[in-house]
């Protein structure tokens, strides 16, 4: 086995920035290990110039599976494409930046290859001639140094763990290949899609975000969240759960399938702190959590946590902040 394959995701006709960040990190790792790096791209109607430009981010070759089955965002046809690429390429490692699709695709690939899989990796190191990841654990209080005993190793990195640069403008040869699709991968199909509609203000520029989750009880709970946000001169954010429930617009959603935000202050109210939420806000300067459930994982990565009734604490805080103003 030789070489590193990076599964690069295409969203809206562009290679995702997260994928490019991992590709660049793979190039640094590959240089240390003496392994070349291929970008594996799956989609439909992909633009050759954009694909070749992945050479500017460290890809030696861009290997492309172009098929309508791969344009749906469904992971299993991508598992087939990666397995086909593995048969030809004999890669030692597979990497991808976590997304809804890539995490499932590389999990499927690991199962098919009998390969070890590490998820939520935040660092990639070359140690003793092999890849050893740093996998975050116990609410980010510890880094486990995870390597592989299997011939092939599969790594899903935490979303936003590796920021992309502008690249060096280079290009790489683009080679197309035809995946062998399995029956079960074709037994799951996309039957509808609604684009997310941006209706509210852009929260990614706010210095202070006050975020609400399921713990607000219902949509009316956002009233006090808005008041606190206004007192701070900030904006309102929301979790996926409350957006899915229709309590607040999608444009305010923070997390894996929403926005990534880095305000100076993030106040999480009634938010449990699932990993899908965490990856969108962990870069915030100071994190405050208010939750009545002392077991909520959000307390593991907050700077200041209040176990209590947000219906009492939030209005008090609003009044105090206003009084200072």
């Amino acid at each position: 086995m030789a070489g590193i394959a990076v599964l690069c995701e295409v969203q809206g006709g562009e290679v995702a920035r997260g994928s490019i960040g991992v590709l660049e990190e793979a190039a640094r790792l590959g240089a240390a290990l003496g392994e070349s790096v291929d970008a594996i791209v799956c989609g439909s109607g992909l633009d050759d110039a954009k694909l070749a430009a992945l050479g500017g981010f460290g890809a030696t070759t861009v290997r492309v599976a172009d098929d309508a089955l791969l344009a749906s965002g469904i992971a299993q046809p991508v598992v087939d494409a990666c397995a086909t690429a593995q048969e030809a390429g004999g890669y030692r490692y597979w990497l991808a930046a976590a997304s809804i699709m890539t995490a499932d695709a590389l999990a499927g690939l690991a199962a098919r290859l009998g390969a070890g899989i590490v998820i939520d990796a935040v660092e990639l190191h070359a140690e003793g001639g092999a890849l050893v990841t740093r996998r975050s654990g116990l609410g980010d209080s510890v880094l486990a140094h995870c390597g592989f005993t299997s011939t092939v190793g599969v790594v899903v990195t935490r979303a936003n763990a590796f920021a992309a640069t502008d690249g060096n403008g280079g290009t790489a040869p683009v080679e197309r290949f035809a995946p062998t699709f399995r029956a079960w991968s074709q037994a799951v199909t996309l039957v509808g899609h609604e684009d997310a509609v941006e209706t509210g203000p852009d929260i990614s520029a706010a210095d202070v975000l006050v975020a609400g989750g399921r713990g607000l009880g219902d949509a009316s709970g956002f009233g006090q969240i808005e008041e606190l946000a206004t007192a701070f001169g900030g904006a309102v954010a929301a979790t996926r759960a409350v957006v899915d429930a229709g309590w607040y617009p999608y444009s305010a959603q923070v997390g894996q399938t929403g926005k990534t935000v880095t305000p100076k202050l993030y106040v999480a109210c009634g938010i449990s702190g699932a990993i899908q939420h965490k990856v969108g806000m962990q870069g915030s300067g100071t994190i405050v959590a208010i939750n009545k459930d002392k077991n909520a994982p959000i307390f593991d990565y907050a700077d200041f946590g209040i176990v209590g009734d947000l219906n009492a604490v939030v209005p008090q805080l609003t009044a105090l902040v206003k009084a200072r103003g």
Partner: protein
Amino acid sequence: MRIAICVKEVPDPTAVKRIDDGSHRLVRSGENTLNPYDRHAIEAAVQIKEGPAPDTEITIVTMAPESAGRSVDRALAQGGDRSIHIADEAAAGSDLLGTARVLAAALKRESFDLILLGQQAADSECYVMAGLVAELLEVPCVTQAASIELADGSVTVKRQVETGYDTVKAQMPCVVSVSDAINDPRYPPLPAIMGAKRKPHEVVTLAELGVDASTVGAAGAATSVGGLSKPAGRGDTIVLEDDGTAAEQLLAFLVEKKVVA
């Protein structure tokens, strides 16, 4: 219709969690509980049984030490009809692939129409078990379901993705992991909690499932943990219970840190 739900016992979130220095494994000897995310999967199955498919049988499947019986009972109380508990010392130390192999072996013994999982494990934050198990079973997989509808031998799932909402249709048998947005799990009433122990519990070993013990557990792990280190970054968390002054203390903290002018 036959629904299986893969559940996990996790350390109680209130307990201080610790990784063993020697084995680099999470110490699981303390207080344990049912993974809270799995409760959404159980609730989804119960709603199918209460709604479109009343003749549904719900089977709870878990791989855990024998001591995990209480968590299995908890899952049964919430709506499971029976349980399959894979308890085998040789399974201890399984990594993600090993765990998936054991679960897939147990699921393969029977013909389930729908296999449900929670979106992630609360302890390891693992969100890929559905994808691993589905591939080993060679069946379709849909993750992060925000709703599930049944029709004509298929499930139709609405899920949120990076670009909006997808509606995905998968032929059964299939594997679906549910997001925590799908429902508000109900707490079981006391009679259901009392009745859980009387439901059929099957405890099985790896040999009974036909799993080669050398392919799972610590011996068969495809990943290895060579060490632990402390991440740079956040300092200690201050957590206090609100006694009426928490808002004041928080503001003082924010002023001291110059987050608030």
